[in-house]
């Protein structure tokens, strides 16, 4: 009964979405306030209906109603309650429902918090949001309906993929989807602006917080996914350049460019058509990402639905959404007026450089991800593009991004003084060079790229701190005055400092991985094996019974300088229902280094495969991601987003937060 209510609510939501996409648009073109307001109420009603559908599906999972096909295929009575709930989005149908739920949440937020937006712009934005919703709701109801029943109901479910029974993965999709879907708002604003033919500072001020919030969620989502891969896959790797990982990285890179160029629109009212294009491309890449994963066009560990019919439907959606918006762009963008001029060496110039570099990075990843597909489509050989391609193209492209990141914020708007900016950074430069030389000396003949990476990370961090010190006049006024200045810095400026520091932290973590040490081999119970400065001792391997698996659990003692530091318990779990074996790694994590242990297959002599890694600073990779997202949120709390688009204040604004 509840399931049917959910199904019904979803169908109603589709009807409401149709109304939301048509009526406000008509209202906006005729200037009828009543029709325009339909957008707001429709968005709220749609959100409630989809929330009901979502609740109904969760209910079916919690009570293990196996007459619902989706539940029977993906759940099991033995599953812990937590994974019954998260299993809702661990499959294709449920994850698509989560997708539209997030979309409805964003639309409802626009409807609620857009009191000071011009009514016609708001109506058009909500209408575009409604169109996207129509497409995806129709997709769910026609090709991927999670509410279909089967009779007679099977006695028990087929369970969830054991690899997916994990807290990291439970929260990875919601964050990722919030990020993906959040960019739909920037997209809708862009399409609405193209329809109106008007892009001003107010538009920039609206698009930027939305993009920034989505970007924060996407950052967390990607970091969670990477962390999950690290601790669960048992190879000690944290990024595999897997097509699905790339699908989330591409919108992140272009989204990063977008949140930077939106600053230029807001402050200087220039780079408008470029920013609009970025907003369209960011959301398009989110859609392409969904398409690649859902249609299984690229085979990958993530692709859990290989179904060309669904692929064809999503392709249709892509053609309408992306093709339509880009066509609109082709016709309307040339009419947009260019904004203020600026010298190549200026804040705008630096942001433009950032955009060009990031766009190139995204294009590189795009090419590397889709090239095998193109080759295959023309009946070429099947190949996969692996890490070597990305290491040779993506990594060198990131070098100028980091170099410029330290300099850019020190340049003035319109016309900057590169020499003066560089002079203020000489300390950072000298420190970076010294670090590079020191590490080179210490490791003589070590991995050069990694050492350069560490130097770059330091350069970036010190450059960011130098800019911050400049703002608070550190050492030039009394510490108390500096403190006061630091506390009263615009939140946007604090956010930038934090986010840029986050990048430096991540880059340092990535670079340090070149110094990891590993042990791989067969270990007899009761024997020792060395790793880095540790001596490890395989004490015993025992059989243990889990809720829906049996496991071999090893006890590995970690000795350092003759002292027992810890005893670690990596497991090898066997899930009988799925006849599948997964590894459960044991990681001793810290800021300095991680000790990573994974247990593999035994051989007939009683020896066990053990993989052990010593990974210096590996947690910095995800820590940096969190710092970036935190910086984004701090920037979101900036006063000027809350004071709204008071045009009278605009003249006073630039000085207030002059140096974002």
């Amino acid at each position, binding site marked *: 009964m509840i399931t049917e209510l959910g199904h019904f609510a979803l169908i109603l939501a589709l009807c409401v979405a149709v109304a939301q996409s048509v009526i406000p648009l008509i209202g906006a073109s005729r200037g009828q306030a009543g029709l325009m307001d339909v957008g707001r109420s429709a968005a709220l009603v749609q959100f409630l209906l989809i929330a009901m559908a979502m609740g109904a599906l969760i209910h079916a999972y919690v009570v293990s109603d196996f007459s619902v096909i989706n539940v029977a295929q993906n759940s099991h009575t033995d599953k812990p309650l937590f994974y019954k709930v998260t299993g809702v989005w661990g499959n294709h149908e449920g994850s698509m429902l989560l997708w539209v739920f997030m979309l409805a949440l964003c639309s409802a937020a626009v409807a609620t918090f857009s009191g000071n937006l011009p009514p016609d712009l708001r109506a058009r934005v909500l209408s575009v949001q409604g169109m996207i919703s129509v497409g995806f709701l129709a997709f769910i109801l026609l090709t991927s309906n999670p509410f279909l029943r089967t009779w007679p109901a099977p006695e028990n479910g087929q369970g969830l993929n054991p690899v997916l029974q994990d807290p990291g993965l439970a929260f990875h999709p919601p964050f990722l989807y919030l990020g993906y879907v959040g960019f739909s708002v920037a997209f809708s604003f862009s399409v609405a602006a193209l329809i109106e033919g008007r892009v001003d500072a107010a538009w920039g001020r609206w698009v930027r917080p939305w993009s920034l919030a989505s970007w924060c969620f996407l950052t967390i989502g990607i970091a969670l996914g990477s962390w999950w891969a690290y601790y669960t896959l*048992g*190879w*000690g*790797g944290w990024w*595999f350049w897997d097509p699905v990982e790339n699908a989330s990285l591409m919108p992140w890179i272009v989204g990063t460019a977008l949140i930077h160029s939106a600053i230029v629109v807001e402050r200087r009212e220039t780079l408008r*058509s470029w920013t609009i*294009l970025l907003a*369209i*491309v960011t959301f*398009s890449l989110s859609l392409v990402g969904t*398409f690649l994963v859902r*249609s*299984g*066009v*690229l*085979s990958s560990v993530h692709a859990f639905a*290989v179904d*060309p019919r669904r*692929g*064809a439907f999503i*392709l249709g959606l*892509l*053609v309408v959404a*992306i*093709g339509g918006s*880009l*066509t609109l*762009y*082709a016709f309307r*963008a*040339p009419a947009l007026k260019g904004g203020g001029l600026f010298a190549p060496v200026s804040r705008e110039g630096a942001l433009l450089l950032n955009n060009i570099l990031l766009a190139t990075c995204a294009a590189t990843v795009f090419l590397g991800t*889709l090239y095998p*597909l*193109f080759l*295959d*489509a*023309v009946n070429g*050989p*099947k*190949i*996969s593009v*692996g*890490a*070597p391609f990305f*290491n040779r193209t993506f990594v060198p492209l990131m070098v100028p991004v980091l170099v410029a990141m330290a300099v850019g914020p020190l340049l003035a708007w319109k016309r900057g003084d590169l020499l003066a900016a560089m002079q203020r950074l000489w300390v950072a430069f000298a420190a970076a060079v010294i670090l590079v030389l020191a590490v080179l000396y210490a490791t003589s003949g070590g991995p050069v790229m990694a050492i350069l990476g560490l130097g770059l990370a330091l350069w970036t961090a010190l450059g960011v701190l130098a800019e911050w010190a400049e703002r608070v006049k550190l050492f030039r006024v009394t510490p108390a005055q500096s403190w006061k200045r630091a506390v009263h810095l615009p939140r946007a400026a604090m956010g930038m400092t934090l986010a840029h520091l986050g990048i430096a932290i991540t880059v340092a973590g990535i670079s340090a991985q070149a110094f990891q040490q*590993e042990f*791989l*081999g*067969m270990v007899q119970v009761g024997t020792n094996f060395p790793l880095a400065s540790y001596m490890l001792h395989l004490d015993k391997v025992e059989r243990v019974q889990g809720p829906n698996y049996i496991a071999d659990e090893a006890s590995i003692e970690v000795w350092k300088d003759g002292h027992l530091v810890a005893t670690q318990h990596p497991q090898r779990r066997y899930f009988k229902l799925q006849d599948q074996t997964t590894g459960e790694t044991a990681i001793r994590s810290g800021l300095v280094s991680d000790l990573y242990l994974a247990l*593999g*297959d035994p*051989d007939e002599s009683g020896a066990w*495969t053990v*993989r052990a890694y010593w990974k210096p600073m590996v947690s910095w990779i995800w820590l940096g991601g969190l710092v970036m997202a935190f910086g984004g949120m701090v920037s979101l709390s900036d006063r000027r987003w809350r004071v709204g688009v008071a045009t009278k204040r605009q003249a006073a604004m630039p000085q207030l937060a002059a140096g974002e």
Partner: protein
Amino acid sequence: MRKLIYALPVLLFATLAGYFILALQPGYDPRALPSVMIDKPAPAFKLAGLKDDGISLEGFKGHPVVINFFASWCVPCREEHPLLMRLAEKEKIPLYGIDYKDRPEDATRLLAQFGNPYRSVGLDQDGRAGLDFGVYGVPETYVIDGTGRIRKKFTGPMTAKQVEQELLPILKQLSGGV
């Protein structure tokens, strides 16, 4: 002319959509790795060696061999490595490696650190041999019989189960039954 620049994104997208339509042709299954190579003569190759004179298809004539494509940058290969070590030491299978798109010094370091399960390693730095074999991703393992035909292919790291149930039986059959 200036207007054309604004139309560029939509034109690029049209090209892309065209490719997607091609890729979605009915009957196209991205997971079905080509099995056309099975029971066909293996592509001829002659590769410089990491430590010795190298390996070639010609040189393998007369007895079955197992060829494993690997690389130092490949994470799943490390997963597979202890298994290969065991196969080489305990089962004494005729295992040869092809180092795929890799630098020789990195491969040397890998084998020095974790042990060398291969009787000989050929270098495929430009990926040419991998292309001829249709290597989709490393690791990939091929069983080639004494007449130079590919008899079996494993994509991704082999599991202990696959080795027990598939690799060892076919090797036994090839070396005993011919």
